[in-house]
Structure formats: C-alpha cells, structure tokens
C-alpha cells in the first residue's frame, strides 16, 4: 500500500513532465496497473501534454466558430473587415514611403483609419439600428416576411373557427394559434398511439412560455427547441434529417416553402403575440371585421419592414457617399504623394531608384 501510494505520488509529481511510458528506462512502465487506475487513457501515451492541448485547442476553435456562426453574416464580415482591412491598412498606411523618407507617414495612416473604421462597420450598424427602432415600435416588424404570412394565415384560420368569446382573450388566441402551428409543422408525422395529444400539448405549452427576463427567455427558447427535437425524433413515418428545422408550408411535391428554426419561431411568436394579437384583442370591433384587421396589420408590418430595409440602404449609402469629406485630410492623396516621391527618386537615380 505504501509502495502504491509512493508510486501514485511519483505519477502526480511527474505529470507535468513529458515522459515516455513505453520506454524501458522509465520505471513507471513497470507499474501498468497503477497507471491504469490513476492516469487517464489519453494522457498516458507519449506526448500526453501535446494531445490534451490539441483537444483543448480543437474545442476552443469549435466554440469560437460556433459563436461566430450563430451571430450571422455581419459578425463574420466585421471580423474579416477588422483583421484584414482596418488593422493591416492602417499599418501599411503608416509605413508608406517610410523607407524613402525615414519617417512614419501619420497622414496616410490617419486617412486609412478614417476610411476603413468608418465605412465597413457603418454598413452593419446603421441598418441594425434602424431595424431595432422599428422593432421597438412594432415588434412584429422583426418577423421575416414569409413567417409573418404563415402566422397571419394561421391566425385567420383560428378566427374563422373560434367563437366570439375566445377572440377577446389573448391567452386563448395564443394557444389556438400554437395548436394550429403544430398541425402545420408536423403534418404527415405519425406518432405512437396516444402520443399525439401529449406532444401537441407540450408544444403549445412550451411555445406559450414567456418571461420578461431576457436570460430566462433564452432558456425558454432552448426548452422549446428540445421539445421540437423530441417530437421530430418520435416520428414513426420517417427519421428527420434536420430536427431543428420546422417547415410551416410546403408545395405539392413536399419541398419546403417556409421554414424556420424552433428558436426563431419562439421569438417570432412572442413578437406576433405582443404586437398583432394584443392589438387584435383591443381593437374597435365595430370598425372592421377580424379578418380585415388581420390583413391590414399584416400588410402594415410588411411595408414597415420593407421601409426600414430601404431606409437602411439609403442611410448607409448617404453616409458612405459623404464619408470622403471626413477622412480626406488634404488636397493631395497619399497615393499621389507616393507617386511624386517615386518620380523624385527616379529622377535622382542611384540606390533609391528601384524602391
């Protein structure tokens, strides 16, 4: 026991040192049972530190790229913009003609900084800002056009088949719409006997979960996603290739026309309920019919979304068009200065001519 303890201590003390356990010189190789009990499999072989570090690196890269992927195109663009354009161009600008003049070219560096820092990110942040304003005023503006169409179509189906009392309660309407969405999303699915109602109730409940706390809402979205994945996997008819894709509409051949993910549907449904359904319940019933109201609000949100997008395009365009006035520090560009310097050097000739 004492010897085992000592050997264990030896292993602990040498764990940070790269050792070849297969080497005949290594006395640890004579204690295989101790090794298998106390040391993990993948840190036993030669270069154990290297292999576990590689695993850590792989995990780190996977997590980082996963984060970039979840954020979408604009994060990828900002990353490329910052690393490949902003930083290198500023550095190259600062070093422009430095071998000829012997000085840092601050003018060129500043111009590059002004141009690159303001142009790329503005193309991302201005549109995001405009749509955020629209979203705060009308949450349903954030819903993609095709999804909005399907939600409105589902709402219309609910209105046509519901009594007047149900149309005055937001909760009832939410549950009815969620129920119809289940029928749309899982049409053609076959479940075990008795499971259909349980799965439907679980779907409706999960979709209607709500919270004012942002972190809690994220957890509820993940919970809804888990419910959808579970439903997808229980399909007896066919094993789904993508359990995180909900198809809300398809054509005659079965090709998806409107698809979304569980998390996106959860978010869109919240926005739809908060904006459209609540306004529907509070509407003046004498002014217009329920279906007219739904159609009108759907069109209005659609055009607001399109308007925000057009406004983003125009705002970015206007900013970029006037941007040169900000970064152009003088009447002579760094390019022109380089050209003049090159000619001057060529005129002088000698060692500097070919630089």
């Amino acid at each position, binding site marked *: 026991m004492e010897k085992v303890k000592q050997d264990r201590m030896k292993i602990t003390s040498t764990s940070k040192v790269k050792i070849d356990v297969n080497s005949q010189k290594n006395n640890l190789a004579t204690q295989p049972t101790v090794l298998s009990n106390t040391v993990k*499999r993948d840190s036993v072989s030669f270069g154990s530190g290297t292999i576990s570090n590689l695993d850590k690196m792989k*995990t780190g890269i*996977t997590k980082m*790229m*996963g984060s*970039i*992927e979840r*954020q*979408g*195109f604009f994060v*990828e*663009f900002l*990353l*490329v913009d910052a*690393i*490949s*354009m902003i*930083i*290198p*161009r500023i550095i*190259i600008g600062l070093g422009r003609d430095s071998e000829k003049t012997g000085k840092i070219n601050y003018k060129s560096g500043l111009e590059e900084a002004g*141009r690159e820092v303001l142009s790329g990110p503005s193309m991302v942040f201005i*549109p995001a800002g405009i749509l955020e304003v629209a979203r705060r005023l009308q949450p349903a503006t954030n819903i*993609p*056009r095709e999804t909005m169409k399907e939600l409105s179509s589902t709402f219309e189906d609910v209105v046509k088949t519901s009594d007047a009392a149900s149309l005055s309660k937001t909760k009832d309407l939410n549950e009815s719409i969620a129920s119809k969405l289940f029928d749309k999303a899982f049409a053609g699915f076959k479940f075990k006997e008795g499971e259909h109602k349980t799965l439907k109730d679980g779907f409706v409940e999960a979709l209607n979960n709500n919270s004012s706390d942002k972190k809690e809402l994220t957890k509820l979205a993940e919970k809804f996603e888990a419910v959808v*994945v579970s439903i997808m*996997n*229980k*399909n*007896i008819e066919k*094993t789904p*290739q*993508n*359990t995180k894709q909900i198809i809300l509409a398809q054509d005659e051949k079965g090709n998806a026309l409107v698809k979304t993910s569980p998390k*996106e549907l959860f978010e869109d449904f919240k926005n739809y309920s908060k904006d459209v359904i609540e306004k529907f319940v509070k509407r003046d019933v004498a002014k217009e019919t329920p279906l007219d109201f739904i159609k009108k609000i759907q069109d209005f949100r659609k055009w607001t979304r399109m308007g*925000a*997008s057009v406004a*983003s*395009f125009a705002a*970015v*365009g*206007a900013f*970029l*068009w006037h941007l*040169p*006035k900000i970064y*152009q520090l003088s*009447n*002579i560009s760094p*390019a*022109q*200065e*380089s*050209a*003049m*310097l*090159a*000619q*001057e050097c060529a*005129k002088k000739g000698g060692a500097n001519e070919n630089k």
Partner: protein
Amino acid sequence: MKINKATSLNVKTNTNKNVAFKSLGDFHPNKLFEPQRAGNMSRALFLINAYVFLLGARFFKSRKVIESNQPSVNNEPKKRSISNEQRETLIRDIPTILIAVNGVPFFEKKFAKVLHDKYGFAILKDKNSPKDGVASGSQIEDWYKFDENLHGGIDKFNQRLDELGADLKKVTSSLSEEIKGKLSTFSNKNDEFIKKLSENQDLKKEITEAFKGENNAFKQASFLQTIPKVTGIAITLALIGIGIPKLNIFITEQVNKGKKPTNAVKPEEQPKQQPSMKTAQNSSTNEKSQAFAAFLKDK
C-alpha cells in the same frame, strides 16, 4: 413587310416554371430587401450598396491629379486619365468588396467537400449539392448525438448518417479505441456495416451508449465542420489584408516610375521661362515638382 415570321404555333415558349436565371433569385426585390435576423442587409444588397456608394464615393470624390489641370502640350488633345487615388481605389476596392462579402462562404464550400470525402464525417447540408454549404453546428449535434426519443434507435441513427453520406465505420470507430478495435473486421460499406452491427447486440448497445452526450464522434464532426470556415476566413484575410494592398502600392509606384518626371524633360524642350515657386494650383509644366516641394515645405 412581315419580318418576324414567328407565330404562336412555331414559337417555343418556356413552359418551365423554374426561372432560368436562378442566380438572379437573390436579386428579386422581396428577397433583396429582406433584412437578416440581426437587422443587416442581405449579402446581395450589401454588395450593391458597397459598389454603388462605397466605391462610387471613393472613386468620384478622390482628389484630382495635378497634371489633369495642366494645359495640353502643343495643342494635343488632353488624354483623360484617372488619378492615382482613383486607380488605387479600383485596384484595391473592387476585389476587396467582393472577397470580403463572398470570400468566406466561397472557400468554405470548396473545402467542406474535400473534408467530407476525406474523413468520412457528414458535414455538408446536402451530400449531393456541396454548393449548399456546410451544416450548422446545431445540425451536427443532431446527427452525432444519439437521442433516446429517436424512433428506431441506433439503426435509424446509423441510417440517417448513411443518407447524409457519412462513412459509418470511420465515424463509429472514432468513439473510442475499444470500439475501433471491435469494428476492425467490419466492412467499409455502410449497408453491410449496419447489417453486421445488428447481429451483435452487445456491441450495438455499447455503441448506442457511446453516441450519447458529448461523444468523440460529435467532437470530431464539430471540429471538421469549423475547419472550412476557418480556412475560408484565413484565405480571405490573406488576400485582402496583405495581397491586395501591397499589389496596389506596387502598381502605383511602377506606373509612375515609368512616366517621365516633369522636371526630367530634355533641356531643349524646357520652357525658356524659369519655373516659379507657386502653389499646387499653378498649372505650369513643372507643377508637379513644385507641388511636391510645396508639400515638403508645408510638412
């Protein structure tokens, strides 16, 4: 006179409902102006905006070259030329914008197919259509983590991987060294693999357990799924960050080195008047060197 003899009887009309120019699908107004989830412009709209406004502003608002203000020599018609800043804008920004917007997905798709075939892990959205790109991280999680709710169990799980184009022996062997050893006699063909596995219930159970949670096959697939994007970003960074700027400066220097310097005019061609030390707005033949001298003086 009837020129067009085509009639409705002999003119073939396109009855194919699919639009011929599918590549223009993204340029339909509805799709073009549909913002992304985070509120950003679509890639196509982003590209249009960048070329029209970003490039347009840099080009048309660049500072005019001094020699374009000089009078023509010997009454020859003045050649229109672009300034150095304009040249640099074109050389630098036309490819940069295209590469910055489309570079990463372009290179990502090229590499994804190579990795998919080499390592046997299904990472493409559609194995028959590599241009659709790489599957998302959450999709990879579904494909490589066994869910107990999956109807049909490990058989359906493996069938799905087979349909996605994975090499089942390679994927399953990555779970652990023990399982790899036990699968050494299995066939490389997926259908034979599934058949033989179904005959060994103990091994089937072991593999089912191994596929649950954060298993090694999932980790490997997740890593392989990120490599095309990492490669795409690296190549894009190298092209935009290093290649294009260096090329730009080099071309500007070479173009202007090749030109005769304004004060390198032969003595017999030099004007009789001595050049005056005026500012950059002076339109004499020695304006360029004077402007440079003025610039150095200001500096």
